[in-house]
């Protein structure tokens, strides 16, 4: 078991490293390099007369910025010109990035020079509670809804919920979130909830808590609504199938109510396949936080990633991809472990 675990951990780390490396190297191959951002900023703000300077001095400035950001080094251990291959040894950008990343230092943002780890940690303080509460809420709701939907003679409103859920399943998150925003946080329509995260500094703790609750209702609701069908529909189908198996019939014959049969007897058997579905939630939640945080102007990690990508701030982008990939792979591993704990038949044989 330990050997298997170590093997899987190594595999996960390897895949995450490979993805981050691919993103890192491909980001350095782009035609206008990332130093463009820094240069244009510097020339716009600090030196208003920069546009009148000669091309030569601009090239000098560019070279200086490249050296400061460490971009003057070759990208990889070997590079190739038209005819020849060159070996650069350890003095290359990839080696520096990798060795720093192994020590836990993911570099500094090109935009404001802050350490990437600080930026990520700050933004995760908003995103993690949002995503975790959305997952918990969606799981609870899905369980209740599926237990209800699995009752066999389907009433009209069961069918209504079912078709609503299958419609939601295919709707992209931004459409759901945008309609919620336009319906409930619109000064022209129902202005019930605040949409943007701006508040005056001088309010008390409880007011602040209330404020954040108000702000997070709509993002949370849109995340839950999008994740809900993915969880509910398979669980309802599983429960319905389990309810036709012999043991459920026996339980019925003993005189148990339908709800009891579903909850006590069918549910434990339906939970195992549900576990994989629950792990697959993570990608849609992570992708969902990007959309939701951009739309509702929350300072979370999804927005950080989207803005960094739009601004070519590659240290942040690479770190974000590394983080997301690690989280995804670890959650897959965790799901496997939980499955093995629940069902000993699935344990690895070694």
């Amino acid at each position, binding site marked *: 078991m330990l050997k298997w675990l170590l093997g899987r951990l190594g595999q996960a780390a390897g*895949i*995450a490293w*490979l*993805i981050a490396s691919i*993103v890192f190297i*491909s*980001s350095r191959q*782009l*035609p*206008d390099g990332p130093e463009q951002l820094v240069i244009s900023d510097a020339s716009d703000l600090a030196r208003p007369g920069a546009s009148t300077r000669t091309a030569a001095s601009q090239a000098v400035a560019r070279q200086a910025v490249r050296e400061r950001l460490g971009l003057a080094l070759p990208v990889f251990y070997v590079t*190739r010109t038209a*005819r020849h*291959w060159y070996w650069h040894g350890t003095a290359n950008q990839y080696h520096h990035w990798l060795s720093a990343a192994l020590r836990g230092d993911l570099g500094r943002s090109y935009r404001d020079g802050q350490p990437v780890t600080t930026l990520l940690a700050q933004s995760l303080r908003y995103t993690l509670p949002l995503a975790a509460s959305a997952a918990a809420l969606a799981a609870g709701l899905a369980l209740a809804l599926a237990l209800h939907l699995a009752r066999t003679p389907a009433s009209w409103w069961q069918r209504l919920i079912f078709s609503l859920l*299958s*419609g939601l*399943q*295919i*709707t*992209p*998150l*931004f*459409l759901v979130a*945008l*309609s919620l*925003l*336009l319906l409930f946080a*619109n*000064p*022209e*329509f129902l202005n019930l909830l605040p949409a943007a995260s701006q508040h005056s500094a001088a309010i008390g703790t409880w007011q602040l808590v209330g404020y954040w609750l108000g702000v997070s209702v709509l993002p949370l609701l849109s995340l839950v609504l999008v994740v809900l069908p993915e969880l509910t529909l398979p669980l309802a189908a599983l429960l319905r199938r389990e309810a036709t198996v012999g043991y459920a019939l026996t339980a019925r014959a003993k005189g148990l109510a339908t709800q009891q049969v579903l909850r006590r007897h069918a549910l434990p058997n339906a939970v195992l396949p549900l576990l994989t579905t629950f792990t697959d939630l993570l*990608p*849609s939640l*992570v*992708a969902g936080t*990007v*959309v939701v945080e*951009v*739309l509702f102007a929350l300072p979370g990690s999804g927005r950080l*990633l*989207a803005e960094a*990508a*739009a601004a*070519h701030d590659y240290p942040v*982008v690479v770190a*974000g*991809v590394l983080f*997301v*990939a690690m989280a*995804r*792979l670890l959650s897959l591993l965790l799901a496997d472990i939980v499955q093995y704990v629940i069902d000993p038949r699935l344990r690895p044989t070694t």
Partner: protein
Amino acid sequence: MLLLPTPRARLATWLALSWLTFLIGTGLLAPWLPLPYAAATPDLLYVATPPTWPPDGPAHYLGTDALGRDVLAGLVVGAQRMVLLTLPAMLLATLAGTLAGATAGFWGNRQLRLPIAVAGWVATALWWTLALPGQIFLLVVASTLQLLSLPRWRAAARATPLVPYTFALPLDSLILGTITLLGAVPRLILLVVLAAGPPPTSLQLAGLLALLAWPEAARLVRSQMLWVRAQPFIAAAQASGLPIGRIWWHHALPHACRPLWAFAPLSLATLVGLESTLGFLGIGMGPDTISWGGLLATVRQSPAAWWVALAPGLALLLTLLSLQKVAAASSKSTAE
């Protein structure tokens, strides 16, 4: 598709199909449609005006957005962009995914044995294209491999199943590994990261969408192929001495492709969702590119202009629901 149980389900499917046909027709004919206004040029006299009809005002049939652009023209151009991006991406992804999944499921890790000379050819080709140093040395090694493998291979064909100088290509592991690699990061994140550079051309964007979409099709076809491979008719075909490539192409592949009829519309729906999300976030396109997602994003600048959000939102929702309907109908008809 025509054998659906109730008249209502049949009507719904026909409605869905006709909307999709209308959409594709609009998208393909967009450059020749007689529209009163161009999509990209703003009409500054009528900024964020509700729908007006000719006798009472200008011919902004669906209103204008906060920048004064005609919503109807934006819808048509957005439909064009969507059709031209997602349809080729879906076809490419389905094709690539089918080929990858079908080969991986059929040959697995051990079944596909190649003569060792093939490794020599591939290595030589790679060596030459990358212009690595030491070409003379490689040539010697590769030709030795050829000389070593060819006579033995011929002898093996005559004799009993002895095939000493071949190697097994671990197709299944290779393809599954690639799928895991692509699946480790959510598709939207990968798309945002990859499309964030200089705005990609629509061909590149379609390729990117296809790159992100093929693993699903591959996984589906692979699992179906694993089932097909165990069926008795494959063993019968092998026993009758058919070449393995022919069995794969003529006998196994058509069965393995059956679930694709229901899968392709859903995959298209996912791609449409991804494309409009990208447009909404404004990533991977130039500032003057118009898409449904981009139209929906402009409503944030003038929340009172409900008509800007309503038309593209309804069109998008209708498209996605139609695709889902078609998928459900074709899964029912292939199940029978």
